[in-house]
């Protein structure tokens, strides 16, 4: 069970505003969380705290396949992203990098910015001040990757590749 303070964003948050391409060139990966969501809120990286939760509208993470978008959010300390729906490649990248996410219809209308919500990833449940929402949890094999902390940790833990 995760508990965290909510930051709200709208529909169609694209990967260019999550992390602009000019920072992708950097080999210093600590640069990415410093500029996370800069395109929508330049001070977001200063305000966001470890364990916070992003709540967004439909089609979160649309646009490019840049995995740095999921990493920037994860490394900024965000514990989970809950959205009405996710863009496909972002969805995959988040799972493969161990950034928990839940697709949860009705969430963006139910929660307020700054409120603390509780998320049960295994059951796909989100508890808010205004009630609980249920969504379909990830299939078991994807849950396992997220729980491992991402595909790399998953491989390492199982030593499948040596």
């Amino acid at each position, binding site marked *: 069970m995760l508990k965290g303070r909510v930051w709200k964003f709208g529909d169609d948050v694209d990967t260019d505003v999550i992390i602009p391409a000019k920072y992708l060139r950097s080999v210093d990966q600590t640069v990415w969380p410093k500029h996370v969501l800069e395109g929508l809120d330049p001070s977001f990286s200063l305000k966001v705290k470890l364990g916070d939760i992003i709540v967004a509208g439909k089609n979160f993470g*649309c646009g490019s396949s840049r995995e740095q978008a999921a990493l920037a959010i994860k490394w900024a300390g965000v514990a989970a992203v809950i959205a009405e729906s996710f863009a496909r490649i972002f969805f995959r990248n988040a799972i493969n990098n161990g950034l928990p996410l839940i697709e949860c219809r009705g969430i963006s209308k139910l929660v307020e910015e700054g409120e603390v919500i509780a998320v049960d990833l295994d059951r796909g449940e989100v508890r808010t001040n205004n009630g609980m929402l249920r969504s379909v949890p990830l299939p078991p094999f994807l849950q396992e990757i997220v729980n491992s902390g991402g595909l790399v940790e998953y491989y390492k833990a199982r030593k499948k590749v040596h």
Partner: protein
Amino acid sequence: MHVQKKATIVELVGLSSYSLYRKFLNLTTQICEGRRFLMAMTISEKILARASGRDRVEPGEYVVGKIDLAMIHDLTGPLTLNVLKEVGYDRPWDTDRVVIILDHQVPANSTVTAALHKQLREYAKKYGLKNYHDVGRQGVCHQILAESYVKPGMLVVGADSHTCSLGALGAFATGIGSTEMASVFITGELWFRVPETIKFEITGKMEKGVSAKDLILKIIGTVGVDGARYCAAEFTGNGIANMSMDGRLTICNMAIEMGGKTGIMNPDRRTLDYTGVKAASVASDSDAEYMKVIGVDLEELEPQVAIPHSVDNVKLVSEAGEITADQVFIGSCTNGRLEDLEAAARILKGRKVSPGTRLVVIPASKKVYIEAEARGYIKIFMDADGVVCNPNCGPCLGGHMGILADGENCVSTSNRNFIGRMGSTSSKVYLVSPETAAATAIEGKLADPRKYFGGR
């Protein structure tokens, strides 16, 4: 120790999940058994079924497919190689099925980019990868894949969202992330959710000055940026049958801008000629099931423009109002092909770019550049006071070769107009066809190209 050549799902999902997954599949098969010989399949379903060793697949199922071709480039590839290094195993499962293309910032524009290029170069050398495209031997990755690698029926993944372009050749091609590309490099397989398919039935003939880009902008403007989310967008009808391969690639290229997992077209004679294949074994059955069928009549199509900052914010060029152009960009994986350059050259021939406007033209590949040069298009652009750069992604994603300053407008043939996409967060990108871009360059403001073809 090497990974087994024929890796199974076990490497990817672990034993316990695998048995669960098998049970799930058996159940699905039993349910489908009765309908098995009755239900037809789409081209996407057929390719995923073949790649996952199944007779048939249904939308919503998870399958693990064997990958026919995997592509990385200089922006997402280094991350894949870092992951492989961290995992401690970096030999690709099949050196012939891996393609590495430098295309985002070519030649290197900084010491950082140079280091990323060097990393890919050394990896290619280490494993003797013959499908490595270094500076001077390359172009925009999707164009190189179309020219030299992809064939109908293939299952193609690329660490780039516009990999969906290759569906124009009758392949199932989709963009993936860098980390999962590392798992493809190790196992040669990847999990897929079988997508629902939306069929776009395109009929009729476009008037002069209107082209494939206008069609796909019109479609995205209608269905929205998540209108095909997680779906395969299948384009069919006589409007596609009569369209060149260049135009078809433009259409499938932008399937991702409506959230599509891929854009795809059934291969025909033109596809076979383009790919050098004698016969194609895969196409949608005529009675295949679609989530939705959307018809578009080309007769009524007019030049379109996607207004910042969303690709579905589409208006008619004739109704968009006065939009000045500080820069015009003709190029990218959407519109940097020979037909695009030909359309722009036809309009720009004997004319000049407006004094207040900068024209940047970037052919999508070496092959396109050489042919455009031979046909005199490059000279036409230069004579018009445009600048022609070497094949690569250029300013499309704010890399180099035309970054925008605060408050500037770029009228562009590329595919995204997101905030800050081409530079300053206060700059604006307007997406148009090559015809509209050329007319705009001449007039210095967004212009309807039809008048250059004797139209309105």
